């Protein structure tokens, strides 16, 4: 059977570092990029005698995420120890949640070529991150940096509802959007603050029995996720086609070779000896706290996208970009309060504003001008007070200096000339100097019209109102 006769079945496990100021069980900073082992204390170093105390923000973030993903929140969830030895795991166990996680039975809706599809969420639980081992430190030594040890994580496990690599990528993107919108995660795959493992299996099309699955690791970009899943599907089909059996194992995505390779088999898998963490009482979340968190939930990316298309009449393409990040969407809505041609506003956002933000590396929060001022500028362009091109310069100046658009137009003399008499004088002058070109035009060479427009605009240093220039030229040329 060819690959097309097989049905891939995919589930994702997402690990998201929570954006808390301090670690999950101690007061150490979670800041990224500190000198190795700077952000540590006896608790996250796993010294003798230390005990964990839960950072309540972690539970708040978990509840918020669970509600956004339509999960049931457990009134009582239980901490467990996952036991294994590794140098970057200071206590020899990870404090996590096992059989009674804080959130269960949720879903996340994604877009597929066949339309909307709800991917079920099996569970979400809280846990502590491990540190980092550095193996190529030189001198045959391995070094351990425990700054990350104890940084809070959410693990979000989907049901095996994804059917191809594109759906998996779509799901991961949608998940990232939700987490970033909620303010619980920064969505950074490259730095590893948002990571994912994929469980992949294949079965003959039409079958209802899933095949043996493999777990893929080291998928630190959307591209790698797609490539690794596609490679793995083809590999498993090959194994089956050649009469073999897929064995359950953990496989690592090799970025350089573009292949997945075996990391450990089921037999080599750890027996984690989970048991309830005796140092932490079960976590109780009251119905009131859940209700309050539900009330405080922001509008989620998907709902916002739908509203942007319906309320502002924007194309899906525009709405998607504008709602990709919450601050941008918020800023658009603030501007929409001052300027009602939403599609035109969107054009300015997608074009000039985003270009400026990107080029100058400025965050939206640091913008120097107000939504009202942007509205004012676009209004001036509409009214012909300033040309669209000059408007872009004005926006650039607003961006850099925060000055009011009217002041910039005045200072730089960018005001457009819409005085018919003034334009007419220039048009007459140009026509008088170019009798030969007029002949050509009248002989049918219509493209010469552009030449005249150019000459007039040049003479007016770009400030002539283009509509009026066109109109007058046509009249004079006898069209």
């Amino acid at each position: 059977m060819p690959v097309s006769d097989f049905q891939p079945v995919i589930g994702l496990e997402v690990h998201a570092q929570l954006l808390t100021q301090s670690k999950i069980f101690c007061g150490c900073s979670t800041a990224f990029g500190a000198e190795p082992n700077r952000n540590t204390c006896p608790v996250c170093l796993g010294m003798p005698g230390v005990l964990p105390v839960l950072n309540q923000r972690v539970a708040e973030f978990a509840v918020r995420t669970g509600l956004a993903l339509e999960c049931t929140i457990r009134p009582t969830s239980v901490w467990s120890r996952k036991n294994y030895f590794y140098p970057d795991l200071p206590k020899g166990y990870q404090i996590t949640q096992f059989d009674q996680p804080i959130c269960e039975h949720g879903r996340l809706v994604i877009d597929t070529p066949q339309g909307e599809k709800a991917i079920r969420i099996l569970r979400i639980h809280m846990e502590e991150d491990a540190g980092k081992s550095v193996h190529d430190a030189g001198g045959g030594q391995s070094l351990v940096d425990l700054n990350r040890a104890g940084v809070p994580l959410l693990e979000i496990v989907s049901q095996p509802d994804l059917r191809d690599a594109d759906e998996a990528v779509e799901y991961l993107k949608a998940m990232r959007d939700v987490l970033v919108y909620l303010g619980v995660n920064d969505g950074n795959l490259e730095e590893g603050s948002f990571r994912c493992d994929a469980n992949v299996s294949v079965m003959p099309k039409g079958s209802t029995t899933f095949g043996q699955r493999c777990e893929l690791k080291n998928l630190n970009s959307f591209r790698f996720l797609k490539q690794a899943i596609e490679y793995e599907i083809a590999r498993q089909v090959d194994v089956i086609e050649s009469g073999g059996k897929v064995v359950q194992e953990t496989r690592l995505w090799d970025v350089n070779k573009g292949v997945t390779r075996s990391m450990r088999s089921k037999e080599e898998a750890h027996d984690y000896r989970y048991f309830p963490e005796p140092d932490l009482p079960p976590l109780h979340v009251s119905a009131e706290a859940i209700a309050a968190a539900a009330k405080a939930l922001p509008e989620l990316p998907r709902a916002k996208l739908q509203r942007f298309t319906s309320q502002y009449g924007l194309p899906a393409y525009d709405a998607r970009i504008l709602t990709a990040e919450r601050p941008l969407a918020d800023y658009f809505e603030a501007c929409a309060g001052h300027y009602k041609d939403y599609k035109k506003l969107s054009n300015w956002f997608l074009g000039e504003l985003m270009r400026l933000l990107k080029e100058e590396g400025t965050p939206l929060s640091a913008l120097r001008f107000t939504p009202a001022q942007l509205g004012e500028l676009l209004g001036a362009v509409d009214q012909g007070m300033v040309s669209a091109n000059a408007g872009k310069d004005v926006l650039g100046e607003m961006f850099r200096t925060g000055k009011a658009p009217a002041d910039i137009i005045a200072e730089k003399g960018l005001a457009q000339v819409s005085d018919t008499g003034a334009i007419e004088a220039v048009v007459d002058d140009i026509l008088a100097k170019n009798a030969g070109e007029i002949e050509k035009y009248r002989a049918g060479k219509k493209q010469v019209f552009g030449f005249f427009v150019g000459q007039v605009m040049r003479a007016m240093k770009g400030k002539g109102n283009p509509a009026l220039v066109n109109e007058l030229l046509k009249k004079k040329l006898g069209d």
Partner: protein
Amino acid sequence: MQLTDLTMLELAAKLAAGEASSEEATRASLARIQQVDPKVRAFLRVDEAGALAAARASDARRKSGSPASALDGVPLGLKDIFLTEGVETTAGSRILEGFVPPYDATVVRLLKEAGLPLVGKLNMDEFAMGSSNESSAFFPSHNPWDVSRTPGGSSGGSAAAVAAREVFGALGTDTGGSIRQPAALTNTVGLKPTYGRVSRFGVIAFASSLDQPGPMTRTVADAAALLQVIARPDAQDATSADAPVPDYSADLEAGVRGLKLGVPREYFTEGMDPEVEAAVREALREYERLGATLVDVSLPHTKYALATYYLIAPAEASSNLARYDGVRFGLRAKDARSLRDVYALTREQGFGAEVKRRIMLGTFALSSGYYDAHYLRAQKVRTLIREDFTRAFQQVDALLSPTSPVPAFKLGEKVEDPLSMYLMDIYTLPCNLAGLPGLSVPCGFTKAGLPVGLQILGRPFDEAGLLRIARAYEREHDFFRRSAPL
């Protein structure tokens, strides 16, 4: 009479009256250690400089009229399981040899804030696993009443030091009887508070759901005073209790008239030494004379306590002791050439036989495929044991029993027989499984001159009740005045 013959409160009174200084008391304690510890071997380490500095600071406070607490200036010893900043702490294990903690345990901080000079670290069974101090990686401690015998364990060094009057009091920890059993074997008072009453932060963990620090003293009143210093909620221990802390000395002399005291059938069984039984029965009659009513009660699941304990405690220990991996502190095997070696050789060389036995027991109990039949079932039985006590305490105010089935045994006698060693804790460990407070008070001696202890178990957070009941007996029988033949 020497200063070291005083109880904590007697010394505190002298300090308050200006009849002695903390420095004198501390020097007396240090001199006594020098004199008798070669025979008792209670101390792993003496911190003479630290203790004297603390004593002088105490005297200065006293002079300026602002003592830090009622016990300011009273020298104390600490089981080597409490982390002391800047002072080596080993839990009786090679794997922590040379480990100098960067922080103080909460209870150590509280003692320092209350002004008590800490004279040193006391011997213990390795990681508190044992009932005789013989699993200490360094040496066994000896019972001051007969130096050929054990002072009990695991807080044996603490009990021996108090009984030998090397210190005025000490802190121990109790996971299955480790405060009460050595107290019983050394004619001292040992109190295991309710689980959560005293902070475990900075106390090297053996079994997290069972461990509890507590006072070891010569008298009941001293135990009350010391508990007063260390009992309080701790934001660094999520299992510490919010319950209000009463004045433990307020009702100490209130007597037992009208109280109902339960005598659990299952705690008077075969295998008990006849002299121990006789002493305890005599104590029961004393309580009747003092106006209490004895009530026969049953704790039917007692027979499962030992098995339950030896699944739960090792399971938790197997995980708690995983951090001793040679990576960050303590011992690292010098001949290790690979990561696997660092783990295997460090732990092979660093842990003693009893610790390894329990790590293996615990690892097995938690293993996939065995978890339900062992660990999970043990937790269910633990609930039944707790319910036994809840029912009993609907009828009675406290329970009375022997603390240990036998008096102090010979060093070396049970080393080769772990099971008989485990049986030493048969009357003490159900209390830990239920999280209840328990106390051992001296109740006489055998013909051979070995101390016997009476155990009193109470309702959660009724330490004051236990102290009051113990004091009623102690008032009639001041065994604590006898000094060990050293």
